[in-house]
């Protein structure tokens, strides 16, 4: 078995379909007799829901059905708590999950109040106008600290407070470390909310076939199998009666692994009740408050350092805005808590977070999922410490890197997968060396920056390190089948949202079965093709599903060799696979095409040896004992216009170590996309709320996404430290670009402004930067 395809820049096999408009997206599904749904959503962030009068809407011509919470009967149930809290001593967790349609109270703008199904979306939306809602407004909970004060209005009265969770994780003795410190750097950091803003909004189409008693659901979900299982349970069907298809999806980024959205619960139910297919496609406006979001955290953090820059300990107390409900548990704040430690030796750590309910839309992971907050706080503290100690910022990082012989390194706290936060492998010095080299660190500081400053230009450099915990369990699976045509089909349960799964999974099979990746057909996200697995999240597709695909291919190869050795009458050791055939070593003209072999593996007459399995097919599963630790360094050079406060990114370098690289083009695409998101997060994107919980910029007129002009082409380098936790040695990369961008940006802007301001918050914007500068520099 030679590694001919592993590590090759195979062009993305899915792109032909995507670029020629032949990829099926949920909104492409168009069925005979299909009806269209629209949701009436709350204009109030917080209030008592007195009544929802839908009589006039029901009378509108073309309207087929209108439902409110009261009409759902037994079907009305709060959604499941998706992620149970990890076993952390003393942990407080108050679960409050979203409901299909609001009843008694509304808790955030955009919460659905009624569902209209009509002959067209136009009629359905017109009927929304006919509905009369009576809400008695309540004061909204929007400020995290005020939410915790006595007498604050309550998002969930039954809980008696707005605390969703509280958890403290610590190691060593921070207080003692602080006592020994040469300097203690303490600051408050704020990291605000943004939208995932996938190019494709959410959508659900459901069709019930009364004759076969089968429900088919097309859903823009990152987790088709759990959606199938959940829908079957809710609707009283067997899991095999429900087929969930997550076709091509225009970006997931996390919110599409949230389940169950009210629309996912109600559209299949409506289709069954009406006996007709029903489609709902989210519009961009809805997406701003009906799809989950992330990122408001406020950290009061301090770093205790020795005179030589050695980290003695870190203390962090932070607030996390979980929105109106907390179905996703503590994944985000635990990621923040863990990721803060970064690639550094931190002997003493004391971190406690409080998750707070607010009258804002639900918070679930968005690309990075809390990791960026940890990186931002730690990297900013190190920058400030370096300044105080008169140290070089790269030097303070190098001083504290875990050495290459420190692995596995146990951080003595729990990660989001409930396993101890133990780094499997890593080598941080070389990644920093490469970044320093690629960005030209020394020369920039010594020559370029002083020269540009003399010319009146404000240029700065940012360089930060990070760890990305990736590839967590529990498991994924795959089935590999050689068809009589000679082509190979790979079916896996994970859904795909643009990551390049069709290419990387094909490459993993190609080497094992000796065939061109273009001959490998990959099927993802269709529960009828593969029914076991969890979904696409936590940068785990290549690691978890990839290893399952690889193992299934190895098992098929064994079957191929066994059968071929019987047919050809030679020892299996004398055979090799190449160009879709099995050949005999030394006599390559003696060969069998894999397709012919597949036909022989499925005899229609005659006898077979007991125990024989038909076909050249195998299924395999892979589950790592715990997540692995990818790492990297981001470095950028920015220029700040001191007058307009516009920031241009001149260069952006990423050195990333995701272990074994299956396809560098795919990895680089992931990193480039992540960096674009990180830049948006750092300088453009912010959801702005007023004190009444109203979102004030719910359109792309006012919510600014970075454009192609704002995002530079990332210069990429790789280092490779294979993970010992999986046979491929792979680590994840899906979130790597997004995680450290804000920390690098903050450092670079600060550097460009020669320390005139401290950047302690994200996102910045030209306006915000102007205000920060104004408050400092105008006497």
């Amino acid at each position: 078995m030679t590694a001919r395809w592993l590590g090759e820049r195979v062009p993305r096999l899915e792109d032909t379909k995507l670029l020629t408009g032949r990829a099926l997206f949920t909104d492409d599904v168009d069925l005979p007799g299909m009806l269209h749904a629209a949701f009436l959503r709350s204009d109030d962030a917080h209030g008592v829901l007195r009544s929802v009068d839908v009589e006039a809407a029901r009378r509108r011509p073309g309207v087929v059905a209108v439902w409110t919470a009261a009409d759902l009967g037994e079907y009305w149930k709060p959604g499941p708590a998706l992620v149970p809290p990890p076993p952390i001593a003393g942990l407080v967790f108050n679960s409050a999950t979203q409901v299909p349609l609001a009843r008694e109270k509304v808790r955030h703008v955009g919460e659905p109040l009624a569902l209209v199904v009509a002959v067209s979306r136009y009629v359905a939306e017109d009927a929304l106008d006919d509905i009369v809602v009576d809400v008695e407004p309540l004061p909204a909970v929007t400020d995290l600290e005020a939410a915790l004060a006595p007498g604050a209005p309550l998002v969930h009265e039954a809980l008696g407070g707005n605390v969703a969770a509280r958890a403290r994780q610590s190691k060593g003795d921070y207080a003692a470390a602080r006592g020994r410190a040469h300097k203690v750097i303490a600051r408050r950091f704020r990291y605000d909310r943004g939208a995932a803003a996938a190019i494709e909004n959410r959508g659900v189409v459901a069709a019930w076939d009364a004759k076969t008693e089968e429900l088919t659901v097309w859903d823009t979900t990152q987790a088709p199998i759990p959606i199938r299982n959940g829908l079957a349970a809710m609707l009283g069907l067997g899991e095999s009666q429900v087929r969930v298809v997550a076709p091509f999806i225009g970006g997931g980024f996390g919110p599409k692994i949230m389940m169950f959205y009210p629309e996912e619960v109600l559209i299949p139910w409506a289709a069954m009740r009406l006996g007709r297919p029903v489609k709902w496609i989210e519009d961009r406006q809805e997406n701003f408050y009906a799809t989950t979001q992330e990122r408001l955290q406020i950290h009061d953090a301090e770093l205790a350092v020795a005179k030589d820059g050695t980290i003695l300990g870190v203390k962090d107390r932070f607030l996390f805005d979980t929105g109106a409900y907390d179905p996703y548990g503590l994944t985000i704040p635990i990621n923040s808590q863990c990721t803060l430690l970064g690639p550094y030796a931190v002997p003493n750590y004391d971190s406690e977070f409080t998750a707070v309910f607010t009258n804002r839309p639900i918070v679930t992971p968005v690309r990075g999922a809390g990791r960026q907050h940890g990186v931002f706080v730690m990297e900013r503290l190190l920058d400030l410490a370096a300044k105080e100690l008169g140290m070089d910022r790269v030097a303070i990082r190098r001083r504290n890197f875990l050495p290459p012989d420190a692995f596995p390194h146990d951080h003595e706290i729990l990660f989001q997968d409930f396993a101890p936060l133990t780094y499997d492998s890593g080598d941080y010095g070389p990644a920093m060396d490469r970044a320093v080299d690629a960005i030209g660190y020394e020369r920039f500081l010594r020559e370029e920056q002083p020269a540009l400053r003399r010319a009146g230009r404000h240029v700065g450099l940012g360089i930060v390190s990070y760890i990305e915990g990736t590839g967590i369990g529990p498991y994924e699976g795959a089935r590999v089948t050689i068809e009589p045509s000679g082509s190979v089909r790979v079916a896996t349960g994970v859904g795909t949202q643009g990551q390049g799964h069709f290419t990387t999974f094909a490459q993993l099979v190609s080497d094992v079965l000796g065939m061109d990746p273009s001959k490998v057909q990959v099927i993802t996200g269709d529960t009828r093709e593969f029914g076991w697995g969890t979904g696409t999240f936590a940068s785990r597709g290549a690691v978890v599903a990839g290893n399952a695909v690889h193992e299934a291919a190895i098992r098929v190869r064994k079957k191929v060799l066994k059968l071929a050795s019987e047919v050809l009458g030679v020892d299996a050791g004398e055979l090799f696979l190449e160009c879709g055939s099995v050949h005999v070593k030394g006599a390559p003209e003696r060969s069998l095409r894999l397709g012919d072999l597949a036909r022989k593996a499925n005899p229609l007459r005659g006898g077979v040896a007991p125990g024989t399995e038909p076909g050249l097919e195998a299924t395999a599963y892979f589950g790592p004992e715990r997540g692995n630790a990818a790492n990297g360094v981001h470095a950028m050079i920015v220029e700040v216009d001191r007058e307009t406060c516009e920031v241009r990114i001149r260069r952006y370098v990423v050195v990333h170590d995701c272990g074994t690289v299956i396809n560098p083009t795919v990895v680089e695409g992931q990193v480039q996309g992540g960096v674009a998101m990180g830049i948006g997060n750092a300088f453009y994107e912010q959801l702005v709320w007023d004190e009444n919980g109203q979102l004030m910029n719910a359109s792309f007129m006012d919510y600014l996404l970075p454009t192609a002009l704002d995002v530079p082409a990332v210069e990429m380098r790789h280092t490779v430290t294979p993970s010992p936790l999986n046979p491929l040695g792979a680590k994840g990369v899906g979130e790597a670009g997004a995680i450290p961008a804000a920390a690098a940006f903050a450092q670079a802007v600060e550097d460009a402004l020669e320390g005139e301001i401290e950047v302690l918050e994200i996102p910045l914007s030209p306006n915000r930067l102007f205000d920060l500068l104004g408050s400092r520099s105008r006497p």
Partner: protein
Amino acid sequence: MIVQGEYTFPGTREAIWELLLDPAVIARTMPGTEEMVRVAPDRYEGRMRVGVGAITAAEFTVSVQLADVVPPERYTMQIDGRGRFGFTRGTAQVRLAADGAGTVMRFEADLQVGGKIAAVGQRLLDSVSKLMTRQGLESLSKEVNRRLASADPGSRSPNPGPLP
């Protein structure tokens, strides 16, 4: 959103008071008002159509409840407007003070705006509310002048005060 200002009308407090509370005058002078009915001595109901940026004609059903009415000095309005594109609600206080031959009206409204109109029209709300206020006051002032002129055909109306 706070909307406040002052405006000097010609005419006595009593005359201005009567105008301000006349539903027909409100309907004529308040921009976008399509209907305004006094359903009780202290309550008005009606419909308004307002454009804010991308939302070109948001229709609202509006109710105004009067409180703390001290003629011809002051009154408070509880405003509740709602429609497909969101809601506006809050309170507005109006005070009238004699100023020579004219009357100074001081007003302050504290309004909450919600729903789509807040979500996509935010950056224009301030300018739209200022524009509507100015247009409303100018038409009201014209109305005052018209009435004064018809009451006393020989007199000329004084120049209205500066805009808020």
